[in-house]
């Protein structure tokens, strides 16, 4: 895309095409011969990583759309269908959901790199502004994508974000109605969000083309911030930049795979495994981690319109950065003051992200206000003043000089990159769920924990028995089919046993030839029948409470781990909050509430239930279910067994996921090693 091509094909076919459509020359000049500064460090590989992530998101997204149904009655179900029934559906969905987070991690690193090295300065203003536009499109895409699974967070996220527009004076309400296509977030909203979520990535791809075009016109910035002057300052894009980007991509994929295969739900919200309910708002509404800093800014302003303006302003202000910072020296490496303020700004952004995940009360609000002020001051006060008063250090004469001056900064750079990258997203990843007065459930030992954890088959079988004999009288298990009992990685029954199990159930079918519904024996293809015909029947029979479906309950319940434990959880792969909570709940009943606790009529006191007053009576008692394998017939054992069973119903392909994960990890590590040595070999001639 830059200037004339030196590409001279010899193959007659290519020659023939090239005369009519110079596409090979374009590719050659853009991605082969294109000169890149030879001093680029690994921070510069995130452009390539972002292209990779855009590709991954589009491919997995197009595939998910083949199986997804954008309808309020089927969206949640179809997502579960993808994860449970579609071949490799769990992999594709987790790749896509975690891919969004990876995309944002990469884009934040890419943006901060631009900020640090002054990549927005003359003549790269248009390049930078195109980047801001891509970022805005990404935020819109990510938001609408999060709505599609139609869980509680999807629904309430959609409600809150669309309501932002109601802050606009005079026309706000009309705009919101227009966005919804109704009087509330409902089916038309979901349908159009699906359509737009499919469209926007291709718009991103279009702007990315412009972004790369602009990049290839003005050339890449570099850590020294001086323009290439001679041939000695640059190397050819291929093989030098290609192999380096490739190596970085493989390293990034290892990081990505860690989440996809080992803790796929860590970056999401447990509440989103509860189907959307327009009547109940989750206790703490938080957006995905990548929006948290802006969410904190929104909540910091005690005025509806002001908050919305500040939130959007915080992004839009980036587009004006080239003119706010008028310093001639690009790279912060040679700007001692700007460098320090850069790092303060990074910390402020991380802290804002952390505050965005905290409840909007007390000290958090005050801190958010201070940091919001600083965020804007950085752009509007600090940078303009710095560019006038700061005395920069001398910059190197040329890129070649810069390379000679610094031998090995790459390693330190990678370390910083990983540390900041990690802190950045994890800073936000924390769930805002406060303890709500309930104690933290004790952490139990689970056979399925950790990278090699597996389900304990006899335990799942016992758990199934407990579910069938106790829980099933009130709780449905609607996403599990009888055939699943014979699936690999499950309770370990064979197909005949699963069919016999199904036979014991009566399933409603029909209509028959006479037009009547009838009951027949269950078949393996049937799902566990619900104990009540509908929600109203369930409520009527349970004192107004609706016993939730248990298929996903082990993933739909969680608790806050707190800083810094949740950071460590990424390493240890701790993700058993759901199971721990379930056991705590089932064993946490107390006959007499503590003094001073007013127990409402019809409720029971439970130590671990949020608010302590639970409608469900103590479900288990010692000796209630008979075990044939000699396991203790105690409430504790029952609770653990049924919880393990429910973990399996929530994550039926966990064993396949971890097995594939190990293979992928080994492959990626070997591949990364090969890429590293290949990169060294290629660059040996350039150094």
């Amino acid at each position, binding site marked *: 895309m830059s200037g004339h091509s030196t590409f001279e094909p010899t193959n007659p076919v290519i020659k023939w095409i090239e005369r009519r459509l110079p596409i090979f020359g374009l590719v050659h000049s853009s991605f082969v011969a294109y000169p890149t500064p030879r001093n680029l460090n690994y921070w510069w590989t995130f452009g390539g990583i972002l292209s990779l992530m855009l590709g991954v998101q589009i491919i997995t997204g197009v595939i998910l759309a083949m199986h997804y149904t954008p309808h309020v009655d089927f969206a949640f179900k179809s997502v579960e269908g993808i994860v*449970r029934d579609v071949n490799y559906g769990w992999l594709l969905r987790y790749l896509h959901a975690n891919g969004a987070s990876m995309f944002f991690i990469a884009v934040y690193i890419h943006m901060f790199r631009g900020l640090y090295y002054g990549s927005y300065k003359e003549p790269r203003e248009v390049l930078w502004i195109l980047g801001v536009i891509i970022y805005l499109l990404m935020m819109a895409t990510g938001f609408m994508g999060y709505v599609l699974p139609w869980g509680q967070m999807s629904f309430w996220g959609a409600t809150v974000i669309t309501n932002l527009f109601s802050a606009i004076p005079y026309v706000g309400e009309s705009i919101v109605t227009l966005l919804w296509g109704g009087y509330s977030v409902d089916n038309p909203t979901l349908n159009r969000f699906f359509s737009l979520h499919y469209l926007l990535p291709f718009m991103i791809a279009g702007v990315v083309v412009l972004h790369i075009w602009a990049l290839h016109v003005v050339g890449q910035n570099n850590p020294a911030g001086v323009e290439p002057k001679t041939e000695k300052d640059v190397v050819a894009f291929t093989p030098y930049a290609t192999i380096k980007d490739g190596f970085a991509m493989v390293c990034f994929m290892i990081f990505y795979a860690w989440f996809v295969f080992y803790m796929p739900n860590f970056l999401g919200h447990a509440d989103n495994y509860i189907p959307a309910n327009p009547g109940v708002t989750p206790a703490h509404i938080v957006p995905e981690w990548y929006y948290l800093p802006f969410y904190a800014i929104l909540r910091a302003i005690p005025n509806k319109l002001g908050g919305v303006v500040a939130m959007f302003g915080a992004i839009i202000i980036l587009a004006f950065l080239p003119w706010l910072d008028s310093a001639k020296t690009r790279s912060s490496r040679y700007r001692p003051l700007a460098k320090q303020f850069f790092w303060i700004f990074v910390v402020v952004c991380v802290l804002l992200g952390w505050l965005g995940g905290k409840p909007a009360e007390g000290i958090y609000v005050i801190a958010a206000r201070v940091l919001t002020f600083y965020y804007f001051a950085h752009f509007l006060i600090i940078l303009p003043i710095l560019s006038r008063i700061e005395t920069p250090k001398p910059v190197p004469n040329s890129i070649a000089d810069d390379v000679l001056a610094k031998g090995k900064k790459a390693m330190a750079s990678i370390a910083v990159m990983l540390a900041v990258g990690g802190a950045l997203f994890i800073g936000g990843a924390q769930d805002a769920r406060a303890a709500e007065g309930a104690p933290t459930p004790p952490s139990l030992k689970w056979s399925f924990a950790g990278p090699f954890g597996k389900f304990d088959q006899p335990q799942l079988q016992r758990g199934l028995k407990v579910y069938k004999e106790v829980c099933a009288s009130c709780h449905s298990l609607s996403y599990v089919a009888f055939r699943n009992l014979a699936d690999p990685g499950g309770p370990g029954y064979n197909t005949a046993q699963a069919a016999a199990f199904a036979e014991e159930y009566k399933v409603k079918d029909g209509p028959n030839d006479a037009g009547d519904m009838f009951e027949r024996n269950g078949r393996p*293809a049937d799902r566990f029948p619900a104990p009540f015909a509908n929600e109203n029947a369930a409520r009527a029979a349970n004192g107004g409470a609706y016993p939730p479906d248990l298929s996903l309950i082990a993933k739909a319940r969680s608790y806050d781990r707190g800083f810094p434990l949740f950071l460590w959880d990424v390493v240890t792969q701790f993700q058993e909050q759901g199971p721990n909570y379930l056991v705590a709940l089932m064993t946490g009943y107390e006959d007499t509430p503590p003094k001073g606790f007013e127990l409402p009529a019809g409720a029971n006191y439970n130590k671990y239930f949020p608010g302590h007053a639970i409608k469900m009576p103590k479900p288990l008692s010692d000796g209630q279910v008979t075990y044939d394998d000699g396991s203790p017939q105690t409430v504790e054992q029952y609770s653990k067994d049924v919880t393990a069973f429910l973990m399996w119903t929530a994550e039926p392909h966990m064993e396949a996921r971890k097995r594939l994960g190990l293979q992928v990890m080994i492959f990626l590590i070997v591949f990364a090693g090969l890429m590293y040595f290949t990169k060294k070999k290629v660059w040996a001639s350039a150094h």
Partner: protein
Amino acid sequence: MTTSSSAEHPTRRDFLYVATGSVAAVGAAFAAWPLISQMNPDASTIAAGAPIEVDLAPIASGQAIKVFWRGKPIYISNRTKKEVDDAINTQLSSLPDPQTDAQRTKQGHEQWLVVIGICTHLGCVPIAHEGSYNGFFCPCHGSVYDTSGRIRSGPAPTNLPVPPYEFVSDTKIKIG
């Protein structure tokens, strides 16, 4: 990733490039598999394609019903004596796809014809008790089948296929 420079002089560098390139290619091939495999029928579709039982008692002689199995229409025809005789007495040499009626029915249940009602030409559903052989007639492109569901004239290349089925009792069959 391999350079064309030193094809005649393989070096250690070339080996590294080839190894890296090969590993990348293998990785890409494996990564492509889930993307293709997901297009196959999912587990719920496969489970829903389990065998079905059909009660034959309500089907009168000379009547044909249509049931669905795996999304395909299945004709179950209670053939009259004449229809059975017509099918049995047909010269095999006059058939484009020679098959005896016995090969297409179950012994002892000769009056029952069970065929997949999808024209072997291009997939339309033929109409029962139509056409010059009073068997099946496909309105799309004019294929004519006889009372045994065998192709007699028209563009269809083969007989209507017989699905896997068995008699559970005299009045009940299990398809699949």
